[in-house]
């Protein structure tokens, strides 16, 4: 459903270029004439916001790399120098650190929107799976970036996360030594994390191109979950979607700026302002907020190997969502039962996040187990069965009918 290109190059140079590299036509058909469903709401603006946040992270990251030293003796100090001495260093680092949090906030909203409106269903399975790959790359990138700070939380996060691989029977310890480049997390580990932290955002950008390509092949889903049938159901990307995306991006930036300028350390941990010390583990270690639900799942299971498997499965299961959800109806708007289970799922995910930040004892462990069971049951039991038993509401005949009423 790529837009019919009506692109007419203006001026001699653009005409000359278009016959040699038709990039003007590509941009025009993708971001100007591209037809978008006329009923998209603000939840559809997060794709644009995410592209913007990736840009923010790459730009601030490249300049921070000009001041950072990836060595165990200098890493922590070089970041303090960024904060105190480098011109606007405090701003660039707070943008980068809080930018990561905003990036994850946006991606979670984007993912929940996809689940609510069934955006992963045929023919958008590949689009969805590319999104899951981007999310995995984001998690790896975010984790390694956090380690570069080389504070106490950085060091012990690196230790705990790399040790997850030690659960693999037989070769686990060899893999962990290989990841470290030593017998513990140390200078070789920091060096390779720095190399990969610089590389992975560009890998993300590459997969984002594939994600947008797949999107433009199958077209956007919309709140009704039914495909556009006539020209009345769509509007041109520009100006309609560009202004909507742009407006909400600015609103999102206000939130971002509020964090950066007023509470820049709200999401970080005081322990990470203590330089890394391999001899002492902080008494209460927790990952960054965006990993907490998975951390809670890990801790909910009393067995090491099973805990690690559950942690991995909780992420990988997302890739199978298009086949686990058996309902033919996409949008939760017409699925009364699914809608209730969906909101319960959102509450469970946030609940797991809260439990991940609590110490692993007493009621917290019991709640984490209950929530973990629901998390997996949502995918493996509820979604497959709902498609069979749920009585869905009647779908409108077209997008324009749902917007304008039957008279249209």
């Amino acid at each position, binding site marked *: 459903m790529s837009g019919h290109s009506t692109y007419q190059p203006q001026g001699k140079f653009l005409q000359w270029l278009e016959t040699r590299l038709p990039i003007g036509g590509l941009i025009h058909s993708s971001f100007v004439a591209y037809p978008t469903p006329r009923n998209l709401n603000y939840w559809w603006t997060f794709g644009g916001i995410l592209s913007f946040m990736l840009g923010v992270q790459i730009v601030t990251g490249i300049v921070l790399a000009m001041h950072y030293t990836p060595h165990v003796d200098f890493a922590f100090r070089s970041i303090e120098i960024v904060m105190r001495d480098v011109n606007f260093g405090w701003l660039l680092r707070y943008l980068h650190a809080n930018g990561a949090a905003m990036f994850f906030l946006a991606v979670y909203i984007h993912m929940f929107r996809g689940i609510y409106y069934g955006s992963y269903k045929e023919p958008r399975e590949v689009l969805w799976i590319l999104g899951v790959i981007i999310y995995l790359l984001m998690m790896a990138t975010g984790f390694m970036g956090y380690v570069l700070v080389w504070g106490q939380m950085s060091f012990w996060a690196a230790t*705990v996360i790399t*040790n997850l691989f030690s659960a693999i029977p037989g070769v686990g310890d060899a893999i962990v030594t*290989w990841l470290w480049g030593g017998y513990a997390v140390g200078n070789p580990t920091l060096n390779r994390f720095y190399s990969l932290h610089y590389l992975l955002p560009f890998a993300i950008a590459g997969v984002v191109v594939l994600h947008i390509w797949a999107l433009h092949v199958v077209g956007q889903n919309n709140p009704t979950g039914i495909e556009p049938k006539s020209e009345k159901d769509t509007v041109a990307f520009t100006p309609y979607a560009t202004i909507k995306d742009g407006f909400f991006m600015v609103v999102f930036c206000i939130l971002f700026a509020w964090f950066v300028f007023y509470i820049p350390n709200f999401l970080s941990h005081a322990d990470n302002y203590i330089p890394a010390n*391999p*001899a002492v583990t902080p008494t209460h270690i927790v990952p960054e907020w965006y990993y907490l639900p998975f951390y809670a799942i890990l*801790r909910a299971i009393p*067995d090491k190997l099973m*805990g690690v498997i559950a942690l991995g499965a909780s992420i990988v299961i997302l890739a199978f969502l298009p086949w686990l959800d058996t309902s033919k109806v996409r949008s939760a708007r017409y699925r009364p039962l699914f809608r209730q289970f969906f909101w319960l799922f959102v509450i469970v995910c946030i609940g797991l996040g809260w439990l991940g930040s609590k110490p692993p004892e007493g009621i917290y462990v019991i709640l984490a187990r209950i929530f973990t069971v629901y998390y997996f049951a949502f995918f493996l039991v509820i979604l497959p069965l709902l498609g069979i038993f749920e009585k869905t509401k009647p779908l409108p005949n077209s997008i324009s009918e749902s917007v304008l009423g039957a008279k249209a």
Partner: protein
Amino acid sequence: MTTVSSAEHTRRDFLYIATGAVGAVGAAATLVPLIAQMNPDASTIAAGAPIEVDLAPIADGQIIKVFWRSKPIFIFHRTKKEIEEAQKVNVADLPDPEPDSARVKQGHDQWLVIIGICTHLGCIPLAHQGEYDGWFCPCHGSQYDTSGRIRRGPAPKNLPLPPYKFVSDTKIQIG
């Protein structure tokens, strides 16, 4: 240019297979240095040479921490009560059954020498904490007894023993 389609094997088929095979072997061989470079380098391995530790200054009940191969080693001078606690446990009830005698050198019951890395996810347990007078791991709540054996929590194994020997009554060599 014409396309030759023939069920018979041609010299081009041979070239395809031979080129592909050599290419695959070459690509696989290239992976060896690319993967091997991530393993500990020569200086890291060399830095893991044995160390000697003098036990004389360690008081009754005290635990000291030394580093060997960048791993913390706990040296625990156990009191009589702590030795008894470790010995009277019913070994069969333990998650990772090991008698206390297998965790110390014969005739040196008071000295417990273990690698101080939680066998769950690698945190360093806190000494003299938890319900078994041994160690408590702050990360995920594993508890070890006065013999460094796992008693409760997600850790699957006892705290491991480093290779070490007594060079005299008050001196050990680790490594």
